[in-house]
């Protein structure tokens, strides 16, 4: 592999914690979470079975962001969050406009947001079976912010248009592995010399009636009510399913040479990326975590790291019964030599800001980078009664201070699409 080193020089995150990554990091170190009572718009009687989510709280929008164009043009909600996050990342990187001209934009946007009101336009006036033929004469009534008007790659394009990026503009679709794939592909593009700078990440929001109903019916989203807002509990015996979040996250990646030439200070270095396929079942991860292990091993190989060098794994940790056991088994298989899994710290960010679905990998990559920078690991909150099949150190309850030279950030998508990013502490003279 080439000697080109790739670093993270800018970060932006919109989550239930707020609109800046600094807030996210501070609250996570304080062992807070942002899961709150939630019901979809249009369900006013509290009967929607999924009662909690980590929604973005618009009252936290800082004054400085109120003029952002994302709030003023027709966009899906997720695209607004993503555009703001990408802008923050670029501002954070202090890249000048002319340095962005040849930049790539890689963006994961999740499944389209279908509007129930639009679908009702497919009904025949006489009440007969619905069909697209009934919608076309009413096309003027189709919501400008819904999926029938907004293509899936809209966010990638508004970011590129807004920043004047003329490099590759790529929209990623690999379910919950999407943002991680975006960052991994961006890393590879810089390493092979296709571009010098990339803005990569994702945005998603499934917090609407029909998408959450679909996740509930699928058995993926938790409808548990015993634990109130504390129901997202990865690796706990009482975990009951994913708790959806929403938002977006983007990082600015650039070659170290490019970063240093303009006086930028890297947060962390991206060292490798691995991906794999379970090839098992659409509805469940491979029970022994075979695909997850392949992705982690591929990331280690790509980074030129030995398993024993890893200090931290930012787990996919969805709080679903199947994922958390399979991921634990995968970690134990990859880090089996000298039982290194006993020396690892494993942390599950979704316990704090929910599952951002296609965007999940982006803020989780940032938190991993910050762990490398600060030698601090954010906790897995709500983990009180560890599942006996989950027998690793999950950093339960509170943040820990420990040396983090190298870390993996895992994201596994529905259908067995797996990714793992290898990050390292930035060192002037290399790893």
């Amino acid at each position, binding site marked *: *592999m080439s000697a080109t080193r790739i670093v993270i020089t800018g970060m932006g995150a919109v989550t239930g914690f707020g609109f800046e990554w600094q807030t996210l990091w501070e609250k996570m170190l304080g062992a807070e979470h942002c899961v709150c009572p939630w019901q979809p718009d249009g*369900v006013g009687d509290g*009967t*929607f*079975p999924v009662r909690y989510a980590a929604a973005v709280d618009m009252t936290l929008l800082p004054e400085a962001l109120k003029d952002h164009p994302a709030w003023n043009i027709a966009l899906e909600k997720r695209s607004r969050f993503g555009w703001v996050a990408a802008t923050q990342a670029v501002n954070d990187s202090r890249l000048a406009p002319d340095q962005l001209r040849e930049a790539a*934009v890689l963006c994961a946007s999740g*499944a389209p947001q*279908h509007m*129930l009101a639009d*679908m009702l336009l497919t*009904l025949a006036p006489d009440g007969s*079976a*619905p069909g*697209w033929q009934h*919608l*076309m004469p009413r096309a003027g009534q189709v919501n400008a912010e819904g*999926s*029938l*008007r*907004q*293509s*899936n*790659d*809209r966010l*990638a*394009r508004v970011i*590129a248009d807004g920043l004047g*990026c*003329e490099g*590759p*503009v*790529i*929209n*990623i*679709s*690999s*379910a919950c592995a*999407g943002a991680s794939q975006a960052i991994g*592909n961006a890393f590879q593009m810089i390493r*092979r010399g*296709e571009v010098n700078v990339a803005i990569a990440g994702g945005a998603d929001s499934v917090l609407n*009636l*029909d*998408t959450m*109903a*679909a*996740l509930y*019916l*699928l058995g993926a989203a938790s409808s548990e009510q015993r634990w109130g807002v504390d129901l997202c509990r990865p690796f706990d015996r009482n975990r009951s399913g994913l708790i959806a979040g929403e938002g977006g996250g983007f990082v600015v990646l650039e070659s170290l040479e490019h970063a240093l030439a303009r006086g930028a200070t890297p947060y962390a270095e991206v060292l490798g990326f*691995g*991906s*794999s*396929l*379970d*090839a098992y079942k659409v*509805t469940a991860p491979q029970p022994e975590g075979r*695909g997850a292990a392949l992705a982690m091993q591929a990331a280690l190989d790509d980074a030129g790291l030995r398993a024993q060098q890893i200090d931290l794994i930012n787990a996919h940790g969805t709080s679903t019964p199947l994922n958390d056991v399979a991921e634990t088994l995968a970690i134990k298989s990859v880090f089996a030599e000298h039982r290194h899994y006993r020396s690892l710290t494993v942390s599950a960010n979704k316990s704090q800001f929910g599952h951002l679905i296609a965007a999940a990998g982006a803020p989780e990559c940032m938190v991993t980078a910050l762990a490398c920078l600060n030698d601090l690991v954010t906790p897995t909150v709500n983990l009180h009664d560890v599942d006996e099949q989950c027998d690793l150190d999950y950093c339960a309850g509170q943040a820990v201070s420990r040396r983090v030279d190298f870390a993996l950030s895992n994201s596994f998508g*529905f*259908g067995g*699409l797996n990714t793992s990013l290898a990050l390292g502490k930035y060192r002037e003279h290399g790893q």
Partner: protein
Amino acid sequence: MSIAVYIHSAAVLNAAGSECADLLGTPPSPQPLAFDATRRAFALPTPRLASDLFDRKIQRSVEPQGLRLLHCVARLAPALAALQLPPARIALTAAIPEVDAPSPCWDAVQAISEQPQKPLAQLLANTPPLHAITLLNSSVMAYVAEALQCHGPMGGFCSQDNAGLDALVEACQQIVEQRADAALVVSSSPNLTPALYLREPTPSAEAIFGEGAAALLLSSAPSRTTPHALRIAGFARGYSADPQRGAAVARRVIDQALSLEKLCLGDVEQIVANPEDAQLMSLFAEHPRGVRSARAMTGDLGASTLLSEIALALHHTQSASATPGHTLFVSHSRAGHWGALLLASETLEKHT
């Protein structure tokens, strides 16, 4: 590229037929759309999946665009199996458009209309538990991976016409960077729905879309069944929604794609591009050999366009009259994506 990557095999499905040679036939006529008789398109019947490769339940749980893709991919299964590779060395990349079907199924839409005061109850009572699976691109990738035993690197792409190039580039790089020895690149056109015509940037009134799918098998060794092979020789991508900047971006992209082989545009034997795109065609006004496209045979296949054109190029390469030379594929999406791919047709030295 230090390791050569070849287009080993290809499969297509479109209005022209299901064989690459069908793309050389007489153009079919586009037909009025079922939901809008003022527009014409190339619609396809939903194919039946091979039950020896795919679970029969998949036929009911995948949208037509996914079924077309799976039908196409199935025909590459023997070629992939013949390579006898470990599953972890087989990559899978996909260019699949978003699904435009309603996320509550049609039955739920109907039920909600009948009791609009109880949308939640109707939604939950009339949506099958696994309905969401039909809406996810990752489901289609998972079915391909399971059926053809691909455990290696993956990448899913969902843009406009450029998604096919993104998927091809990623697959190619998996082999070049030695993370895989072979890669399946799969693609599908979008379903013909109103969204195609309503989404920005909206197409021209004359746009003729088509339904179809295409899949390629890439490998680090060429197929030895013919005396010629098709090698990936260069690629580049760029973007500008600004028409003033578009030509400069396009020229940069083309120059980059040609640079690895140290070629200029005049050295290219064949250019494949959309002849109806005036901005694109202006780039080749002086090229002596003109521009080829299979678009008249298929309609605009969106994310499946590039792979379908490559499949035809492979067919030419494998014909008895094939001659060595380069083919340059240049794409330009309505939104402003530019892409260029250079393929080299080569004579195999030790053909057996």
